[in-house]
């Protein structure tokens, strides 16, 4: 069985700074994998290279058997890779429903018209925004904007979902709702790469983790195992705690 998402020897430099160095990993279909690491370790850069927001300087990204390396974002999206943004980015002049419709209309499989309207409602209901398609996004609360961000990503009917700190900034009860939602997706067989700082979420959702530090992968394996390795603790907390 081929990997759902495979990265080989990804490189990225910004001027003299090597932001991502020789990063390789693979996700099997249906797997939820955590991509961890302290701030500035290169996680978001990796996400951006997968989704096409940043061109890589070397290496290869494959989705199933398609090479998507250096494809522009819209083509990556059409190849079944959807993402959320670290800070929610709902489109303010569109309604909640239109935000979702956008991904349906231009995503992986292109839907339009009456069929698409029904699907918008279905996606909104899935994230807990059922019946609220006509609302202006400015009127939504933070958790609801997070939900909308998720619904918009799901509406492109991706095979791989990149969640960039999607759970950040939620209060404890909202966090629980968020985790349940991701778990629900997991149950449906979605392949998810989760960049996350909230360990509670990582432990609850990820069977496997990849830890980056200073642009390199420093640990990879089962979540419990990886999180207890001295190198990982050191990367996060500094030498004294190792």
């Amino acid at each position: 069985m081929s990997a759902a998402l495979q990265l080989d020897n990804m490189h990225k430099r910004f001027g003299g700074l090597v932001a991502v160095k020789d990063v390789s990993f693979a996700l099997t279909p249906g797997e939820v994998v955590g991509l961890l690491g302290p701030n500035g370790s290169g996680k978001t850069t990796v996400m951006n290279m997968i989704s096409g927001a940043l061109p890589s300087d070397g290496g290869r990204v494959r989705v199933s058997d398609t090479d998507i390396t250096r494809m522009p974002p819209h083509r990556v999206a059409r190849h079944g890779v959807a993402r959320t943004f670290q800070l929610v980015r709902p489109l303010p002049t569109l309604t909640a429903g239109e935000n979702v419709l956008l991904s349906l209309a231009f995503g992986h499989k292109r839907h339009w018209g009456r069929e698409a309207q029904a699907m918008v409602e279905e996606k909104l209901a899935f994230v807990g925004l059922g019946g609220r398609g006509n609302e202006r996004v400015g009127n939504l609360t933070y958790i609801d904007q997070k939900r909308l961000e998720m619904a918009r990503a799901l509406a492109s009917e991706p095979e791989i979902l990149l969640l960039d700190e999607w759970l950040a900034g939620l209060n404890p009860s909202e966090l629980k709702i968020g985790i349940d939602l991701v778990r629900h997706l997991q149950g449906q067989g979605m392949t998810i790469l989760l960049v996350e700082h909230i360990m509670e979420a990582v432990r609850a959702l990820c069977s496997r983790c990849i830890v980056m530090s200073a642009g390199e992968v420093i640990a990879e394996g089962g979540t419990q195992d990886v999180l207890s390795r001295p190198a990982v603790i050191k990367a996060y907390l500094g030498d004294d705690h190792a």
Partner: protein
Amino acid sequence: MKPIHAFPLAGAILVALAAAPLFVSDYWTGVLLGMTGYVTLATAWALFSGPTRYVSLATVAFFGVGAYTVAVLNETLPYPLVLASAAGIGAVIALVVGLSTLRLAGVYFVIFTFGLAELVRQTVSWWEVNVTYTMGRYVFLPFEGRHIYWQLLALATVTLLISWGIGRTRLGLALQAIGDDETVAAHAGIDVTRVKLLLFVISATLITLTGAIQAPRWTYIEPSIVFNPTVSFMTLIMALLGGAMRLWGPLVGAIPLFFLFEWLSVSFPDHFSIILGLLFILIVFWMPQGVLAKIEDLRKGGRT
């Protein structure tokens, strides 16, 4: 749905407007002609600049290219071919300009388009002086004011129909998303560059045709007449006053402002630019979304 009921009404108004020259004086036909020209310009401008918020000051570059094409070709080609050539030239220029500039952000795009209008004017002037040795050309076409007016009315109708049609398709949704957040639009699967380019070309082609159709009105054409930057600014202000994000916005802005500008240019010819500038500032400060949005806000505010 409201738009369905709006169709017979719009049709009736169109018929009345088309019949008007048969009943009014030549002077008023001329006024209607000028007004229809600006309605077309403002609507065509807003087609691209409204949703994407790329403020273009290149309106007069395309307008002038249209008029000049007619001036150059009117004695060598049949009229429909002259118009087709103008449209083609406008589209090609828009394609080249679009490919090279639509990656420019915000204010850089504004400055570039303003520069483009000047560049085109200077290039045409240079060419006429140094290559063809003619400064200024005559347009001899057997058209009266009403003939030009009918053509413009048809073009205005087509422009509004295109604007209405785009708003109904996924292209319209894509445009609006691009205006909101290009990055999100791209990650949703929209080929942002292609959409912007397509709309820029459609908009520029319609603007070029507006210039081409109006060319016979002047009889004598020279660069300083048809490449007058005031055309770009007036188009912009009209579209913004009505609301560049709405179908009827540019029309609603263009009609009163056209009459105001006519009156101002006759009554205060020396202060016209100052008043134009002040008006621009007032509109941007008071109703950046345009009159239609303002009215909607007030009505919503009244209900709650």
